[in-house]
């Protein structure tokens, strides 16, 4: 497994194919289905229909209904059944149609998938991936728009992976499928159509390793999923202010790559944390806490968290925009930590 660093990625960028985020995921699924007979997909409408976001499109035609399985609307079965399959030798990759539906299979995710091996003395592997399309898309409402990855920050036994680029999505998903541990894999729905370079050949990205998406000196923005693009846009616009922004994408929350985040903040002395989930009690808290524990003497300014307002996501697309963070919010936060408030 080769670790893909920022520099390597930049270097290879030119020579590689362009795929959308959805295509990259599909390619990872196809490659792993091809490679390992124990891998199968299961979920609602993922078969001939290709999934409600088209991610698994074509896989049913290629691999057949034994490997790509449409299920009833039964999320506790989808996840719980996958746990049963995983502890008996298979490598299920299941899809919850919307990440929000984690709530109807919470026990299956947080206690069955996560703890089965541990509570049964290490006797089983649980090689299970749960793919979860997440995030606001303009009007899907509080039950089909959340970014619930933070719910699992406190669940030992799980890996929580949240890619922000097609290449990361492909490389991380392949690592997830090969992992003998359960992995929750969050895919921001807005990213599905975004394109980016994909390295040729076998491409694996290790779980739990952050990626510095942009280097800078004055302030560190920790952001993941769709917020990485916001952070990069903010960074670009802040160049005019003479502010040099570093963007660290942890690419997942569990394990959280504390070292990369801490080193970056030790260098810049300032931290802004950006996520789409609501700010109060949100997943950024852990990042802030880690910094308050390990980087306090280096912090030249209070940490600022940017996240959604402390309300459920309104189903009105008009109101939704007022709730989730935008690039201006990120810029304002950076200015605040820079003292330009």
């Amino acid at each position, binding site marked *: 497994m080769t670790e893909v660093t920022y520099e390597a990625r930049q270097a290879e960028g030119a020579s590689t194919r362009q795929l959308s985020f959805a295509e990259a995921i599909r390619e990872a699924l196809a490659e792993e289905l091809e490679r390992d007979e124990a891998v199968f997909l299961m979920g*609602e*409408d993922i*078969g*001939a*229909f290709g999934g*409600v976001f088209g991610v698994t499109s074509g896989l049913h035609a290629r691999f057949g209904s034994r490997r790509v399985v*449409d*299920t*009833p*609307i*039964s*999320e*506790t079965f989808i996840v719980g059944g996958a746990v049963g399959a995983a502890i008996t030798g298979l490598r299920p990759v299941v899809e919850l149609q919307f990440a*929000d*539906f984690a*709530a*109807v299979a919470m026990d299956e995710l947080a206690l069955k998938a996560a703890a089965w091996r541990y509570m049964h003395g290490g006797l089983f592997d649980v090689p299970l991936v749960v793919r979860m399309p997440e995030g606001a898309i*303009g*009007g*899907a*409402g*509080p*039950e*089909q728009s959340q970014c619930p990855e933070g719910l699992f920050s406190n669940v030992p036994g799980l890996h929580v992976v949240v890619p922000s680029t097609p290449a990361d999505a492909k490389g991380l998903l392949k690592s997830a499928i090969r992992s003998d541990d359960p992995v929750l894999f969050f895919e921001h729905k807005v990213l599905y159509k975004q394109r980016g370079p994909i390295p040729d050949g076998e491409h694996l990205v290790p779980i739990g390793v952050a990626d510095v998406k942009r280097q800078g000196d004055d302030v560190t923005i920790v952001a993941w999923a769709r917020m990485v693009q916001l952070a990069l846009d903010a960074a670009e616009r802040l160049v005019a202010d003479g502010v040099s922004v570093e963007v660290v994408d942890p690419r997942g929350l569990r394990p959280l790559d504390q070292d990369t985040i801490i080193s970056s903040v030790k260098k810049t002395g300032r931290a802004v944390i950006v996520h789409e989930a609501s700010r109060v009690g949100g997943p950024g808290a852990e990042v802030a806490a880690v910094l308050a524990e390990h980087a306090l003497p280096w912090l030249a300014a209070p940490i600022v968290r940017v996240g959604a*307002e402390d*309300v*459920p996501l*309104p*189903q*009105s*697309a*008009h*109101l939704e925009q*007022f*709730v989730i963070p935008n690039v201006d919010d990120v810029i304002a936060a950076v200015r605040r930590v820079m003292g330009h408030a």
Partner: protein
Amino acid sequence: MTEANVALDKQLAEPGVSGAPLRQLFETMVRIATWEQRLLQFMSEGHVAAGFYHPGRGHEAIAAGACETLRRDDYIMYDHRGCGHVIAKGVPLTAIFGDFLENVAGSTRGMGAGIVHIADPSVGVLGQSGTLGASFPIAAGAAFSSVYRGTDQVCVCFFGDGTANRGPFHEAANAASLWKLPVIWICENNGWAISTSVEQSTSVADLTLRAAGYGMPGVRIDGTDVVAVYDAVSEAVTRARRGDGPTLIEATVDRFRGHFMGDSESYRDKRSDAEFSDRDPIVRAERLIEELALMTQEDMQRLRSSIRQEVEAAAVEALAAPKPSRERIFEGLYK
């Protein structure tokens, strides 16, 4: 088949119109379909985003027939398929348009419709759960509440065939039957859950087979026959009100416009126009009305056009309302 099952089936097999107010049922169905037609126009005009609406065309008889048997203070929990339930239960058309237009004319005062949150406690419309299946326990809880408070309100819970396989059905159905709560479970079986057919998702061809497992009657009806719906639900409501507990009604029906607006339905066979009109509850009611000479073609035309006007007026009124300002997002969370 349970005893009650057989009894109801027999009764429904009798020809004629029972006591159903056919004219009224027809009117409600036309209102539902006309409302949806106008919503589609809002979509093509760009006023409403299309992707999140799940059209109800074809399902009108279930909402109309069921709600006609209810009192204003009875409760309903509806689902994402169309807006027939809330229209039939009496939520003002302007409010429903306002929800889709995401403006302050809406029942949710600007929070929008989404998939789908419309509510009106004054007519017993309790709202919807976007996570399918969560409505089951809430419906049972509302029925529990009416017993506790000593009223005889009933609660009708509408859901799809796909949703029938969610676990909370089991918990809610057991509790409701155990305590003989006044719930009527109405499964609108349109044969599909998005792209997944009921044969692909469900271990029994007849969902009413599940009723006996909870000790309630199960009744399977043609959900495109508004009279059959009215009769079956009337019986179930009577039963529920007198304290004899829930009934499971499965109403078979056709999903005319795909799962969501724009669904190409590549996964299923195309149907002919004749097949559609045979499964069109409004066409069927029209035929019956003519047969029984309850209204002339002219009467029906007049009714249709007056409803078109009513709907248009509501649309115009709703469209005039403003979207809420940013502050709206902080309202209604805590008291």
